[in-house]
């Protein structure tokens, strides 16, 4: 199968393949690998109809930038007139009346949407073990999780069910499953990409990000998705460079800091550690200045992240009340019962836990102890991260402490342990800086290992060039 959109587009040009054939291939893969449980729904007829329309456009030579790109969409991103339920029972039967800005923009460039993808309920989790729709399996080992929360999106790309996916990343939900599934996951700078049409979880962290087979496709998708949106007041007015055109602009004067607090962490597996050191050594060998960067606040990031994201989530999820759409409990005796029973039946345990946590940290007796303090610590973490990024062009660290873990590893008895699966990804989320996870090898079980790179706010251009350099010269040659 093709490894990048540019290869597909050359083939389309030479007429050695058509969009219809591509879509049929993805649909066939999705059918063959139904056991992975990556898609909640495929839009087979629509996708083929779109492919036919685009094939006609190709023959007239008036085709968009993303022609030939079959896109999977995480089930928390709105696509007008299609079902969307954030992997939750509480949105049973809900049909979007809007399309996310990112969806509208890629459709404008002739991407074809293959279907909506399974994930952790309301994007809360790191394993895509969905209580209503079942677990997403890792393409590389069906006993293992695909990561989360965009697990369906990452596993689908790994299995060729689509060429790319839209995931969402609040605390690592694009990067972590990308690492587990051996694909590329990009979390753009917060505000770089419109959140309009994305189901809100932690609004001050949420970003839509592409999951792709290669850095080049991530760059291309980002340049289409990004940019100011009148429907999202927090979207940035920064101009959007043509990321895909500047991938070769790497510079060996770039300074690289490796976050030793992550590499020396007790939770890290030796194989992941070795893989990352392997890359660092190779970079040194390629005359990059690589040195140790310290981030002593590492331990404070997950609690800060969980307090603030849960606080935001507790209000963001208040709208799911059974009044206007989605699930409504049958025959409630009164209004209060309608709320309580609908929400009790509709939300899974993980979601309930975070709503309760959010309500707790915002309650007047604990507000200052938790919420106010977490806001202060967030500013501190952001400041320290920016300080480090003024000394280094990039910070390099593992995306995850381990490779994909076995399903059912975490239950209500080890909630905090499960939260630490995000340990290395939350720094970029809390600080709002862009970060990418790229595959850099496999462990002895054949499970992919992801390398994470962070850069300064809005420096995706540099970030992508650097990731591309490693992908082309290290990963592919290793």
């Amino acid at each position, binding site marked *: 199968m093709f490894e990048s959109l540019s290869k597909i587009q050359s083939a389309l040009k030479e007429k050695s393949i058509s969009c219809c054939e591509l879509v049929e291939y993805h649909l066939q893969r999705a059918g063959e690998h139904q056991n992975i449980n990556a898609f909640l729904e495929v839009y087979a007829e629509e996708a083929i109809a779109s492919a036919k329309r685009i094939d006609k456009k190709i023959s007239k030579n008036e085709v968009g930038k993303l022609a030939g790109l079959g896109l999977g969409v995480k089930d928390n991103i709105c696509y007008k007139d299609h079902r969307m339920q954030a992997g939750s029972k509480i949105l049973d039967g809900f049909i979007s009346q809007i399309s996310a800005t990112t969806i509208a923009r890629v459709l404008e460039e002739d991407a074809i949407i293959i279907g909506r993808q399974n994930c952790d309920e309301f994007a809360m989790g790191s394993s895509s073990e969905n209580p209503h729709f079942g677990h997403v399996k890792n393409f590389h080992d069906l006993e293992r999780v695909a990561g989360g929360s965009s697990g369906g999106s990452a596993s689908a790309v790994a299995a060729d069910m689509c060429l790319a996916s839209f995931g969402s990343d609040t605390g690592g939900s694009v990067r972590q499953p990308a690492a587990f599934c051996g694909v590329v996951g990009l979390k753009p700078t917060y505000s770089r990409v419109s959140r*309009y049409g994305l189901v809100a979880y932690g609004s*001050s962290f949420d970003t839509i990000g592409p999951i792709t087979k290669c850095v080049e496709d991530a760059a291309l998708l980002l340049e289409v998705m990004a940019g100011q949106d009148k429907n999202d007041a927090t979207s940035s007015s920064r101009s959007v460079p043509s990321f895909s055109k500047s991938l070769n602009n790497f510079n060996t004067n770039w300074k690289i800091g490796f976050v030793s607090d992550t590499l020396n962490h007790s939770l890290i597996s030796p194989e992941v550690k070795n893989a990352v050191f392997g890359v660092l050594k190779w970079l040194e060998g390629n005359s990059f200045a690589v040195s140790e960067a310290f981030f002593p606040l590492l331990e404070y990031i997950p609690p800060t992240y969980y307090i603030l994201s849960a606080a935001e989530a507790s209000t963001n999820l208040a709208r799911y009340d059974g009044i206007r*759409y989605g699930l409504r409990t049958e025959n409630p005796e009164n209004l209060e019962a309608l709320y309580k029973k609908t929400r009790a039946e509709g939300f899974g345990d993980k979601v309930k836990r975070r709503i309760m946590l959010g309500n707790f940290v915002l309650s*007047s007796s604990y507000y200052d102890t938790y919420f106010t303090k977490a806001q202060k610590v967030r500013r501190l973490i952001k400041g320290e991260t920016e300080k480090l990024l003024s000394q280094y062009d990039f910070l390099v660290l593992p995306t995850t402490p381990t490779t994909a873990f076995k399903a059912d590893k975490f239950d209500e008895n080890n909630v905090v342990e499960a939260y630490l699966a995000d340990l290395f990804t939350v720094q970029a989320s809390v600080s709002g800086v862009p970060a990418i996870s790229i595959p850099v090898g496999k462990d002895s079980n054949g499970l992919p290992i992801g390398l994470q790179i962070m850069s300064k706010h809005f420096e995706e251009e540099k970030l992508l060039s650097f990731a591309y350099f490693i992908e082309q010269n290290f990963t592919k040659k290793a």
Partner: protein
Amino acid sequence: MHSARGSSFTDFQLVVGLEVHIQLNCKGKLFSSDKNIFGCEPNTNVSALNIAHPGTLPIVNQKAIDSIVLLGIACKSEINKLCFFDRKSYFYPDSPKGFQITQDNEPFCKGGILNIKVSKNKRDVKLTKMHLEEDAGKSIHDKSSKDTYVDLNRAGTPLIELVTEPEIHSSEEAKAFVQELRRLVQFINISDGNMEEGSMRCDANVSVRRKGSTELGIKVEIKNLNSTRNLQRAIDGEFKRQVEEVLKGNEIISETRDYRADSNTSVSLRTKETLDEYRYFPDPDLPFIQLTEADIKVLKEKLILLPWELETKLLNKFSLSKESVQFLSQDIEIAQFFLKACEMSCNYQKMANWLMGAIQKWLNKEGTSLLSSNLTPKKLAFVVDAIEDKKVSYTTAANELLPKLMTDNQFDITQAFASDNEEDKFDFNRIKKDIHIIFEQYSDKVLQYKKGKKGLLGFFMGQIMKMSGKGKDPKEINILLEEELKNL
């Protein structure tokens, strides 16, 4: 609790603080472009955002920000240069998101004053703050015995909440405050101020204390005051209730009471023993709003005159009657129309009379407004001057010219007198001439009249009406006749 023995109503002071919600007349809602109109079919002015669909995001309406800053400038409030919106969480079916977007810590306006007048006394009432928030929808309980219906048309409507300091001491003062505030918001055109339709809603925090005491008593919040009359009656009733409780030796309970206008009573809705748990925090979907000196200056320039400044000007510079002053200082657009006309004619009072009388009557009849008519200040000045110069009678002007002026923008008033037929053109002079012809004809009767036989007026009227009064207003002729008789 000190002894109530021997005390009476006159020993107590009433203390009231008001919370007024002012619905803004912006075209859109506070965070979406859905229509902000009263009286539509239920759930017609709602978009995906208004029914809180997942994925939708609020975008603040700049007009609403301008409105609150205008009101803040008019009330000499401190304008907050860095504001943000907060989420206030509570579950209710007419609150679709499960939280209201409002302002808790950083409102747009802090402090300020509004000057009120009760009988002849003027005083400033201090304001605590003003903030922007979105209105809720409406729950309708009386459509069915079993179900509650929800209409979300009103959800998201922009509101200013204005809070006063607890320093209003009579129901008359409370009424005067609300009336003055209503006049101000109408005058600066940020709200229609209509209390019946709920564009202005008022809650009163009422407490009592012994005269001379500076401590505040336990306050009771009275909700649902939808007219100044109800506000006044509710405050008077609550004062009486609280004093009676104190005189009986009872404690006042901190509570919220609902005013019922039909019975002029209030009933307890809930006590405030438990702390309200609204879990306010800054809304992450809305960036901080920075106001610059330049932004504020632009808005200041819009407030050329405030109603009280205008009042002084109308009284002192144009010597208008009190009635006219009151009328003109209701609406900034009418006032500006008038001031413009005053640059073109010195017949100030007559122009004011026209605006209050014939023009207003016509506008009411046609159900339209001055600015949407074709009348211009210049045309008004021209007509009034023409009447004063006796080029046209008041009646002709009011009955024949006015409708044309109001409706026909092609109608050129300056040509009206020149091109009209002889009869109209020489209206006054001609009737005057006719009067003198009759005087000469009946010089004996004139003599009798001068000697005191005033009853002859009717005879002269009859003659003149016969001679030249066809189609003319007898009242006008009568005035002319009396004038000429006086001049004899």
